[in-house]
């Protein structure tokens, strides 16, 4: 039953790996051209280091494209394949959960692949020894994974009943998230300001900012706004968004007709 999902995710990862390999090759070429291989220039002061969390954030940013491109598993099935998908001896719910599981595994694999590539590039310039884990690293990694899964949930919910249009909706969600954050940040007059602030609470980008801990002197934001809440709260909010999206997708999937 899972074979189609396995192939679909595997093919997606293959294409993603080619793109990442291309970026890696281009990076190595550029670094070599500028004589920077093995020439790490960061000041060796004891307080200077590369946060592992920042590398997670970079890997997550790249894996977002994989998520938006590949997060349309249900809508792909709903573009003419339901008579095949639904005439297998498994329930619709189980079939959908299998698709979710493989997509999630693919997203995590995309993050891992990008992370390894980033570390490899840093190692090539001789900076690997400056990479440091922070006390938050594990939680930050969890946050970035659920950040992508929250988007996956939204994409699944929006596209489950749309068939072939699911892919377009997926990219519209990315644009919409940026716009909502932008409108929220620009302090529009009421009622628009209130509406966009409320909508932004449902925007995963709001919960995806990375602060350079513990000083929070540097921030990497995926969107235009951030919460400034405890990391645990961000993670909980993202988990809620992911769960709500997947449940909404599942409910639609159960009601669909071929």
């Amino acid at each position: 039953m899972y074979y189609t999902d396995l192939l679909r995710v595997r093919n997606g990862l293959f294409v993603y790996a080619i793109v990442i390999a291309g970026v890696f090759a281009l990076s190595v070429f550029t670094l070599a051209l500028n004589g920077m291989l093995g020439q790490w220039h960061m000041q060796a002061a004891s307080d200077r280091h590369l946060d592992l969390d920042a590398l997670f954030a970079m890997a997550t940013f790249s894996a977002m494209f994989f998520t938006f491109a590949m997060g349309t598993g249900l809508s792909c099935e709903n573009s003419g394949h339901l008579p095949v998908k639904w005439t297998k001896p498994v329930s619709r719910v189980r079939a959908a959960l299998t698709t979710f599981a493989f997509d999630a595994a693919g997203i995590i694999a995309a993050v891992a692949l990008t992370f390894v590539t980033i570390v490899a590039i840093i190692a090539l310039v001789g900076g690997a020894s400056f990479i440091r884990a922070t006390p938050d690293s594990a939680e930050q990694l969890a946050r970035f994974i659920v950040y992508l899964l929250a988007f996956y949930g939204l994409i699944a919910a929006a596209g489950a009943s749309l068939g072939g249009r699911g892919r377009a909706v997926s990219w519209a969600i990315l644009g919409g998230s940026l716009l909502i954050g932008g409108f929220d940040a620009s302090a529009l007059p009421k009622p628009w300001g209130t509406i966009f602030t409320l909508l932004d609470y449902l925007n995963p980008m709001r919960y995806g900012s990375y602060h350079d801990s513990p000083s929070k002197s540097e921030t990497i934001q995926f969107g235009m706004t951030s919460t400034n809440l405890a990391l645990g709260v961000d993670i909980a909010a993202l988990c809620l968004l992911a769960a709500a999206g997947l449940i909404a997708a599942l409910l639609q999937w159960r009601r669909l007709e071929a």
Partner: protein
Amino acid sequence: MNDSPAKIAIDRLTKRYGSTLAVDSLTVDVPKGSIFGLLGTNGAGKTTTFKCLLGLARPTSGTVTIDGKPLTPENFERLSYVPERCALYEWMTGAQHLELQRRSFKYYDGRRADELMDLFGLDRRKKIGKYSKGQQTAMALVLAFSIRPDILVLDEPASGLDPVHQRHVLDLIIGEAAGGSTIIFSSHQIGQVERAADRVAIMHKGTLRLTGEVEQLKADVKVVEATFDSEAPQLNGLGTDPRIGYVMRAGKLLRVYVGGDAGEIAKAISAKGPRSLRVLDQNLEDIFLSTVGAAPLNEAEY
């Protein structure tokens, strides 16, 4: 009549899409081990009936049961469906579809699948998107027959196939039924249905117009066919005979469809001096055309 218990029982099935009534209170029993042909013009409700039968569409009202019970996912272990339009994954190869089938069905028979791939001349390395329409249909049939199904639901199974492969499909259907499978299929090629099916149902505009055993339906009405040297004559009075269903006149040819004994009618026509005259069983095409109201002439033209 076939007295064996119904393998598939469709009871007062109604399916509405908005204001369109696709199927209207359809009741049909498909006996175990039978080949059941579902006939109808485009839009008659055949595909919708199949979808409701398989749980792909929700009936507005009515029920469908298999072996007396509602459909469950477990039924699909031994139930195959070939939809009218190819639903296979165009980005997967033939071999990958076979692998999907192997992993999904307990009773998958790899040897049979290989035989059928060879029979239809399908290249398993090719992606489905690169197959012709006929090859896509053939691939769907290979997958359907590869699980040794107990029930086969085939919507236009010979669509796009060449005559040789159409014949293979008919042979497969007949062979599967001989092995105890129950088959329900639709086709616009009435000759195929006539050759394979032992029972038929004719649908028109969502309603069931006629159902029964093919041989019985054919024997119920006789065709008196006469050829004249000049224009076929008027029947003068015979047209009001209640035994006559309808009359077709085309130039020198006269065909009269008679319910029950056709002897007297044949005698009356013989008196008009035809060059030749014969009494035949009607064929399924005649039955279909008269049932859906597409007979060439109506009573007013007797």
